[in-house]
């Protein structure tokens, strides 16, 4: 059995941090760790995975893999799993990761634990903790099929550098154009100077208390000062002040930062579902009774229009 594989999440050679987080965790299982990178012109990335302990790097290149597409990627991975028999394959719980893992799992008639926040793999047995009911309960599950498949939430595992051999392996190409059933017509990269919500160390969010785009600007200033991702409650998204992809909560993104700053957000249960696992939570709200204060490590009862700019001044000192 060939240890744990980590599927590399990348677009145009930009590797998602969660890839390294998964490699770091996989290393702790004490078995061989391999990165699997599929794309076009990706061989040059191999040394990056060795830095986080990858003993091997499976490199798969070809035009058919240039854009992520479910069909070709599943065909390739299924063939590789058949040939090399890994114990476990970990994917990032991104949109692509969950799509790929779900379709692959079904092709292999296998189980899959998605959005795992903890993983224990030993002797081919995989046990995962999943946050269900939007984090209101925790479910510990065992994937009883082989290889053990899971998608991992970003930000739950610590990065740990470890030198690995990073030996490049080039498996046979098993996908052809006939496997591609999705035609990507357009991809518009969200241009933002800020980090992405589910990977950010700090998230600063604005709610209905921002009262409009001007209030969001106030919150943005704090976000930029902290190098934070910007987020919002459903109220500020439904009001059109922020894009849908920035919604934090049960029907938005689940974030897991070191610090979450809630500005003018009441703390509805659906919002808390998306951010209450943050390490530190700060809240600024005019209403002393706002439920957000029940989860805040540091709450300021006050007007965000006054407190936030003063806070920016203070932080700059």
């Amino acid at each position: 059995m060939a240890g744990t594989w980590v599927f590399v999440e990348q677009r145009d050679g930009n590797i998602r941090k969660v890839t390294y987080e998964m490699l770091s965790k996989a290393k702790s299982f004490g078995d061989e760790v391999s990165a699997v990178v599929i794309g076009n012109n990706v061989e040059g990335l191999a040394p990056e995975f060795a830095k986080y302990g990858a003993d091997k790097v499976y490199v798969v290149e070809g035009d058919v893999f240039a854009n992520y597409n479910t069909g070709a990627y599943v065909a390739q991975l299924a063939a590789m799993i058949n040939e090399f028999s890994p114990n476990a394959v970990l994917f990032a719980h991104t949109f692509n990761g969950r799509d790929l893992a779900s379709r692959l799992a079904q092709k292999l008639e296998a189980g899959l634990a998605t959005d795992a926040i903890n993983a224990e793999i030993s002797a081919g047995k995989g046990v995962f903790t999943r946050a269900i009911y939007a984090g209101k309960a925790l479910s510990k599950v065992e994937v009883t099929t082989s290889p053990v498949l899971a998608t991992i939430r970003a930000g739950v595992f610590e990065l740990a550098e470890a030198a690995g051999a990073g030996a490049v392996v080039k498996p046979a190409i098993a996908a052809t154009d006939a496997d591609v059933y999705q035609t990507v017509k357009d991809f518009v990269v969200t241009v933002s100077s800020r980090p992405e919500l589910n990977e950010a160390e700090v998230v600063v969010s604005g709610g209905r208390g921002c009262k409009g785009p001007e209030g969001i600007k106030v919150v943005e200033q704090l976000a930029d000062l902290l190098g934070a991702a910007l987020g919002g409650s459903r109220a500020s998204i439904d009001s059109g002040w922020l894009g849908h992809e920035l919604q934090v909560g049960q029907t938005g993104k689940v974030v897991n930062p070191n610090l979450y700053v809630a500005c003018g957000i009441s703390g509805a249960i659906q919002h808390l579902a998306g951010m209450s696992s943050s390490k530190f939570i700060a809240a600024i709200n005019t209403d002393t009774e706002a439920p957000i204060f029940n989860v805040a490590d540091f709450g300021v009862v006050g007007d965000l229009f006054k407190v936030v700019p003063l806070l920016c001044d203070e932080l700059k000192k």
Partner: protein
Amino acid sequence: MKVLVCVKQTFDTEAKIELKDGKISDAGINLIINPYDEVAVEGAIQLKEKNIATEVVVVSAGSDKAMDTIRTALAMGADRGILVKQDSAADEYQRAVALAEAIKAENPDLILAGHVAADDGSSQVPTRVAEILGLPNVNVITNIEIAGGKATCTSEADGGTQVTEVSIPAVISSQVSWNEPRYPSMKGIMQAKKKPVATVDAAAADAKVKIIELALPAAKTAGIKIEEDPDVAAVKLGDWMKNTVKVEVK
């Protein structure tokens, strides 16, 4: 064109979760249509209103209680329903097998579903169904256009927005921002009672995932709360951010 929508019954998003005998208790819980599936139902009804779809069929795999969820979709405007009777403890593989079996018998031109369920948060079932049926899939869509045997889908992607074209039949899953689901009208609710709902048993399949233990997370407790002049409050909060959280200021 026949559109089939998979719907799941879930707990109200307001629900407080409690454990009883190591299981999640549904006592006193208000059950709703999974919000993501509700958006898929709305999307299907809109396709019918645009004369693209001719029939909207909703399918739910679950207990007898899921009949209420089917009725909700019928009250919104779906034409008929299918309840696939299945144990609520079914895993994603078992669910997908059961749904795919029911879908196969219907031979629809388009299959819609929510991209994730608000309860187990798995986001596997639509993609698994597509694999079983050998159909293309697209996930997390915020718009769809159907023309010339193809579906052109706009979807939320990692780091951007993607437009993907697939031939239909296909399995397509919705993001909540696709549309604003309608409330069933009084007339719709009355009509829904008369719409046909077939009941079938789930196809047999072995579970691939075993639940070992369910637990409640440690409750987050309130920390410091201050109510002071904005300048004093800002200094204290800034101090906490710098010294306790140890933020980096750019």
